[in-house]
Each structure stands twice: as C-alpha cells, then as structure tokens.
C-alpha cells in the first residue's frame, strides 16, 4: 500500500452551540497535514467528539465556521458525500450483514463491481488479520474482532480522511494495549490522514504524530507527544498527559525558592513569582545531608516496575517521585531530592 493517501484537513473558526444553548466548542482553528495522524485528547465534555463530528459532517459548525479538505470547502457537504471513513466507539456494525458484507457495504454503495469488491474485501481482511471470519455474524465476534471489522469497513472505500471516535474504549485493558500497537502499525501502513479522538493519554502518545489537548471546548495545546509531555503549555496539559508536580515559588533567576530549599533552574529563568512543572521520573532520591531540597517521606507505593514515593515539606503540595523499585525508603525517612535544571519546566499560566 502506498503511503500518504487522503487530504489535508483545515478547520477554520469552527464553534458549536447546541440547540439548547450549550456551548460545546469555542471557535477552533486547526490544520491537519496530508497523511498526518492527529489525536484529539481531553476529558469527557471537552468538545473533542464534537470537533470530530464537525469534520465528519455529522454536525454543522456555527455560522462562520468552515471545514476544508485540500482547500475545497466541504462545510455544506453532508457526511454521505464527504468520502470520510469513520470508526465509532461501539463500532456500529450492521447486525443484518455478515463480516464480509459489512466491509463491502461502502464499496457496494459506490457501485464497485462484484469481483473488484471481493478482492478489496479479501485485501482488508488480510490486512486487519480477521481471515476466516468473513461469513460470521456480527454477534459471533469478540470485541477485538469487531474493532478490526469496523476499521476494515471504514478504510475499504479509500476515504479521504479516517476518523476514529474512541475506538478502543469499549475493550478491556490488556486487549486495548495490544490493539493500540496494532492500530498504530496499520495507520502508519495506510498513511491516510487520520483524526483520532481519545481520553486516554497513553493512546494519544503512541498514535499521534501530533496531539491536540482540549479543555472546555478550546484547544489547550497542540504539539508532538514529546512536546506536550516535556513542555506542557500550562498546568492542565501537564497534569492531563501524565503525572506532574506543579510547584509555586519565588524565582531568583537561577533558582526557585521553596519552603524545603532551593530548586536550581536552567539559565535565563525569569525572576519573581513562578509556576514550574517536574515529572516524577525526573526526580532522584538522594541523601538528605547536603541536598538542595530535603523533606520527609509521606507514603511509598509499590507499583511493580517502580516505587511511587510522595515527599512532604518541600512545597505546599507533597511531591511525587518515581524511584527504582529496589530503593529502600519508608514513610518518615528524611530524604533529599536531586532535580536536573533542564527537567524543570516553567509554566506560563497560574494553576487552575
């Protein structure tokens, strides 16, 4: 399969107010490159599904909003003529058709001749690894198999954009992780422009070329998975895409003054009141004597691959630290913390 199908998608000033007056989406502008996978990430009610449905043509943006596919205005084009592929949260497979007929439905609608249709179905069945299930009824499939059929059905007619609405949420945790990897391989292989909606940050990290973090109907940050993880724009993004310590204190240019000591900052930091973020895995536990920051261990949780330790007495809130699972610490211990200056990210906004 050749790379880079699909179109570039442009969302211009798309807001959405529902009939009952609920504002689901502030005016959003977003450009998605040809062949790119963009993940819309956010808590429930943040507007990510509404934005996806606007791109799909299942919702109309408020007056003034436009959706463009490769520069062509498709705002007024209904979904059945937009040539998009969509995978729904509960898959919405047709119970009255078997697996092969489900996959072939979009091809049948387009009037593709039978032999060509059969060949395309066979190709997709192979690609998604559901050989042998072609003649099964939908209610005879497992959750993972349904998910694959839904994906095969959506991409069969070679859509211009592939839209996925929480496609793994209905599955249990172990299966979700396995299918996440599989889905990633498939999306890379297809190379089609993809918009993927999820509330699961791990899914967003693995699948997205870029991640759009959304909150209360607006975009909180757009960036690569690394950017939003290491350089979150604000405390909300920092805490949504992983565990984060948010600290407030007074900056002196080279350090942040905290109740538990001085946290060294990278060169060129601002002075005055500052808000910074540190990921738990960036902090090292050291001996209390001579450490720049020192506090008391509040709790220790054994998570398996690591220890999650909370340390109080350094900032207003206890700090979360990921320590090696062999570390010998217990609640009540005095410990020192070492934080490399480059792991301290100064945030723009005040915490919520």
């Amino acid at each position, binding site marked *: 399969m050749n790379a880079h199908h699909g179109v570039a998608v442009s969302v211009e000033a798309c807001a959405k107010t529902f009939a009952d007056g609920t504002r689901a989406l502030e005016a959003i502008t977003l450009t998605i490159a040809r062949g790119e996978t963009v993940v819309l990430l956010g808590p429930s009610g943040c507007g990510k599904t509404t934005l996806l449905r606007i791109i799909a043509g299942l919702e109309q943006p408020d007056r003034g909003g436009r959706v463009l596919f490769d520069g062509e205005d498709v705002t007024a084009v209904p979904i059945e003529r937009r040539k998009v592929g*969509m995978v729904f949260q509960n898959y919405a497979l047709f119970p009255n058709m078997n697996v092969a007929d489900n996959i072939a439905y979009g091809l049948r609608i387009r009037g593709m001749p039978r032999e060509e249709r059969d060949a395309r179905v066979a190709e997709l069945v192979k690609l998604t690894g559901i050989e042998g299930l072609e003649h099964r009824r939908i209610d005879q499939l497992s959750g993972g198999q349904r998910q694959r059929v839904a994906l095969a059905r959506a991409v069969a007619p070679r859509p211009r954009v592939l839209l996925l609405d929480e496609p793994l949420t209905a599955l249990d945790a172990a299966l979700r992780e396995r299918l996440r990897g599989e889905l990633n391989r498939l999306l890379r292989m297809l190379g089609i422009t993809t918009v993927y909606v999820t509330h699961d940050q791990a899914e967003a990290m693995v699948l997205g070329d870029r991640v759009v973090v959304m909150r209360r109907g607006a975009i909180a940050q757009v960036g690569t998975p690394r950017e939003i993880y290491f350089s979150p724009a604000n405390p909300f993004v920092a805490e949504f895409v992983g565990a984060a310590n948010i600290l407030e204190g007074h900056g002196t240019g080279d350090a942040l003054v905290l109740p538990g000591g001085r946290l060294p900052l990278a060169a060129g930091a601002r002075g005055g009141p500052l808000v910074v973020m540190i990921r738990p895995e960036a902090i090292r536990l050291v001996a209390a004597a001579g450490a720049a920051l020192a506090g008391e261990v509040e709790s220790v949780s054994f998570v398996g691959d690591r220890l999650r330790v909370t340390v109080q007495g350094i900032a207003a809130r206890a700090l979360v630290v990921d320590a090696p699972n062999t570390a010998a610490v217990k609640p009540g211990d005095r410990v020192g913390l070492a934080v490399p200056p480059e792991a301290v990210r100064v945030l723009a906004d005040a915490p919520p």
Partner: protein
Amino acid sequence: MKGRDAGRAVQGGRLAAIRRRLVFAGQLLFTLAVAAFLVVPAFLSILAGVTSNYFVGIRSGVTLQWVAQVLSLYGDTILRSLVIALATLAATLVVGVPAAYALHLRGGRLARVIEEVITLPLAIPGLAIALALLLTYGGMAEFRRSWLFILVGHVVFTLPFMVRSVIAVLAAIDVKLLDESAASLGASAWRRFRDVIVPNARAGILAGSLMVVTLSLGEFNLTWMLHTPLTKTLPVGLADSYASMRLEIASAYTLVFFVMIVPLLVAMQWIAGRGRPDGERG
C-alpha cells in the same frame, strides 16, 4: 435421641413432599377450571356450527352444510375483510414504518407530541372515531359508499400499533448510530433506510404487521358505524347472522372466523417469543 430426631426429620420431609404435591394438584385443577371456563364456550360454539340441528344436539349428526351456507351467503364479507386487512397493512407499512423511523431519529418534544397524536385513536372509542369520519366525509357520497371509507377507519385505528411496535425495536438497536455509520460509508437516506434500518427493525415490523391484520380482521365498533349494506365486513356480517339467521349458521360463521384469526394469533405469539432477548444475544 439422635435416631428419634432423624426419624422425625424423615417424617417431616415426607409431610412436606405430600403437601407440595397437594398444592400442585390444587393449582393444576384451578388452572384447568379457568381454562375450561374460557375454552368450553368456544368449543360449544364451534360444535354448534357443525351440528345438523343444535336443538336436538350432536345426536342429530355432524355436517358441513352450515359452513357451506355461510360461504355462499357471506363469502363476500370474508373476501372484503381480507382485502381491507391487507390494504390496511399496506397503508400502515407505507406510512407507519417511515414515520416511526423519522420520529425516532428526530426525537425531542415535537416527535413525542406527534407520537401521542398518532396513539390517540387507542384512547377514543371506535364509535366516536367513526362518527367523526362520518361528519367529516359523509358528504362525499362515492367515498362514503365504497370500502375505502372503512379502510380509512381501520388505518386510523391500527396505525399506532404499527408505529409503536417499530419505534420499540428502533429504540432497542441504537438506530441513530447505525444510521450515522451507514451515512459515513456514503449511503443516502433512502439506502440507509432500505439496507440497514428496515432489515434490523424486521422483528418489530413483522409483529406490527400481524397485529394490524388481526385487529383489522376483527374490528367491529368502527366498521359497524361506517359500513353500508354493500360494504359489510366479516365481524359485521357475524353480528348480522346472529341477529337474523339460525344459530347453526352464526356458529359456523364463527368457526370460519376462528380458522382465519387463530393462525395469526399463534404467529404473533411466536414472533414475540423469538424477539425476547435471550442469553445468547444479550
């Protein structure tokens, strides 16, 4: 000590078993008595229809002459009832199924109000509906004299059953999601309706259809008000025969009606049983 306790326990167990058996026998007897109360009159009526002379009793011999007479005297009402029932079915299918689809898909207050209005004829006595139809269309002589007038009454009366039964199925299968997914694959509204909605609502449509046919065949109140001597249906003819014919003929007529309606009722039960969610389908 121990032995005596055990003995008492065994005796107690036996007593409980006897009591259970007695209770069961009592319940069975009661059920049979109630069933007999309902079945015996129907059976007697059927028997009367094939008895040579009812006043003499079954001794006078078994005959099909009354049935033959019914067919010759009232054959037209039977045929008319069938035609009206099928036409009613066609009308409720053409109007009711898309209406149910649209109402379900649209949702909201307006859809609920329309659903209530469609259901209203259930709450209004058939005579009142008939009167309203007569007042409104009685002046159109041609229409008033034709069987189409009765058809209109039957459609008004049976439409809610079709709409309700289809809406119930649509609500059970998340039709909105199926509709959206078919649309995302490029299907027009009509193709979505034909390829996805109707096949998945089949159980409801079938149940509604049987209900409509059965109700139309048996409808009396409305029809009695709307009919003319030339547009009698089976139940109207039945009333007529009870009033003016030998008891044997009326009974034979009932027999004919039974033969027509019982298979429909059985089919309805069968479909209702199949549509019930069971373990396998979840």
